[in-house]
């Protein structure tokens, strides 16, 4: 690993400096992660005092339960919906802000603020707006002849949590797309303009391909966000319902562990989630390597 050529000589001091971070990591990260692995292969008595080794039973039980597949499916729909919507909106807004000359700062400020809203509060705002009885959107939809009740209809519930989650993430994608757009050399765009390519053609054939690394990076980040940071939205808006339609993996691991008190299953789900994070992190770092090579 890279370090400094000029270093200080001391044996105890560096360990002392690392101690706070390492202690927190040991107690609150590695210990619980180890416990999760342990519990995933054991069955606890109702008091959580005695553990019996059961091998892969928790996992076979998990992968034989239809609810888990429903949850995987809900997570897939939810995360792809959030990623697609927030990447699309972020890109469109960034492209237009990059294009204009006046008012950039104003638009920028007006796009980035939702980043600072807690997911659970984003859920509360959207639930109110789309509330089946009191929400103005429900009213407008009823007028248009569309029955709207996200508290009863599973597809509408999914649509609502996807919108709330995507809304919060647009600002993040916007910031990175705008940085990516501003890093594209002016000369490339000008050359294309001289060759007679119109704005849309330039965007599709030059700008978009040059943004691929940014887009891929953001895709991974958005998936991580949708997988792990959206607990609050689900908890505030649907509680995983109706009928498990929005019971995404992070919500299920919470519900089974704390409400259902099924430690073995919850731990097995934790292990599956860890595998997912590791995969996403590896993807992200593979991408970073590539960026270093081609930059």
């Amino acid at each position, binding site marked *: 690993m890279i370090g400094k050529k000029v270093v*200080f000589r001391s044996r105890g001091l560096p360990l002392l400096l690392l101690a706070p*971070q*390492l202690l927190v990591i040991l107690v609150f990260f590695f210990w619980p992660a180890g416990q*999760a692995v342990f519990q995933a292969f054991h069955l606890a008595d109702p008091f959580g005092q005695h553990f019996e080794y059961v091998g892969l039973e928790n996992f076979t039980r998990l992968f034989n339960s239809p609810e888990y597949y429903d949850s995987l499916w809900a997570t897939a729909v939810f995360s792809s919906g959030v990623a697609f919507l927030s990447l699309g909106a972020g890109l469109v807004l960034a492209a237009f802000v990059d294009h204009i000359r006046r008012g950039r700062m104003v638009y920028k400020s007006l796009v980035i603020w939702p980043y600072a809203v807690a997911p659970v509060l984003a859920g509360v705002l959207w639930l*109110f707006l789309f509330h089946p009885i009191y929400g103005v959107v429900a009213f407008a939809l009823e007028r248009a002849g569309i029955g709207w009740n996200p508290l009863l209809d599973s597809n509408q519930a999914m649509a609502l949590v996807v919108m709330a989650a995507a809304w919060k993430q647009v600002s993040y994608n916007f910031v990175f797309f705008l940085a990516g757009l501003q890093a594209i050399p002016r000369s490339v765009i000008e050359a294309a303009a001289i060759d007679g390519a119109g704005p849309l053609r330039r965007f599709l054939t030059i700008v978009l391909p040059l943004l691929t690394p940014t887009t891929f990076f953001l895709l991974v980040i958005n998936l991580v966000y949708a997988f792990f940071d959206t607990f609050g939205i689900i908890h505030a808006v649907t509680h995983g319902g109706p009928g498990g339609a929005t019971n995404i993996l992070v919500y299920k691991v*919470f519900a089974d562990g704390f409400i259902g008190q099924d430690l073995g299953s*919850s731990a097995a789900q934790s292990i599956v989630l860890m595998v997912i994070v590791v995969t996403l992190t590896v993807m992200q770092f593979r991408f970073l390597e590539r960026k270093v090579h081609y930059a």
Partner: protein
Amino acid sequence: MIENNRALAIFAHIILVLGVATIAFPLYYAFVGASLPIEEVLQVPMPLVPGDRLIENMAAAWDKGSFGRQLVNSAIMASVIAGGKIAISLLSAFAITYFRFPFRTAAFWAIFVTLMLPIEVRIVPTYEVAANALAPLAWLLQVTGIDGLLGGRLTANLQWSLLDSYVGLTLPLIASATATFLFRQFYLTIPDDLAEAAKIDGAGPMRFFRDVVLPLSTTNIAALAVILFVFGWNQYLWPLLITTDPSMTTVVVGVARLIPGPEPQPAWNVAMAGGLVALLPPVLVVLVMQHWFVKGLVDTEK
């Protein structure tokens, strides 16, 4: 030269205004809801012009929970997490970059791996360790047989619950791989001549850290502080789990409890007024510190 397309510029502004309005609408609607008396907020459709009850509704939200206390809790949680993460990461990164010692690479990787263990993934066991933060120590004493030598009395007394406490709200979230990497990357760009000069002048490592490294890091610290403050303020799952006492939880959790269920007179106006109070501080921080915020966002993902 790129053509000066007036029509396209107007089109761009139209799209942007529509986009910005769509983004703002949920907040505007919440603001209107928060400013109406209960009869009007429950009207279908609800009026889209603000009323004059904003302060009353905020006061009602304030009285319903321990709102004042919860705001203080959120401020403490966000500042301690931001400050703590920055402090311990500055020190860890300094140790990893400016010293050679056994297990240096191991320490680096140990911190790195935490990136892959978000709290949502290890939620039940993390709660258990928060209920007794000395459990790992007790286990160690048992496994090594030290406890047996002392007749088993020691482990029975090793009990430190973090539930319903500020330590519990902050300490488990205070490690930061991201901040450690950011500072390490930055330290690597500090010219070696500075450390050389400090050594020649007879300054020890901590003197060098305080007088050279720390002042040079201020921009990075400011950028990170904004991101981490927002991160800390917006925590939900963790405070929800480890606090049961309403006066020990955060304002975000408090507001979520104001969401009305299927009741005859659901107080959406009060819930929205509370929501505004809870979301305003981090939004203001991001808007006021916009420059630092964008820098922090882009830097932490490098």
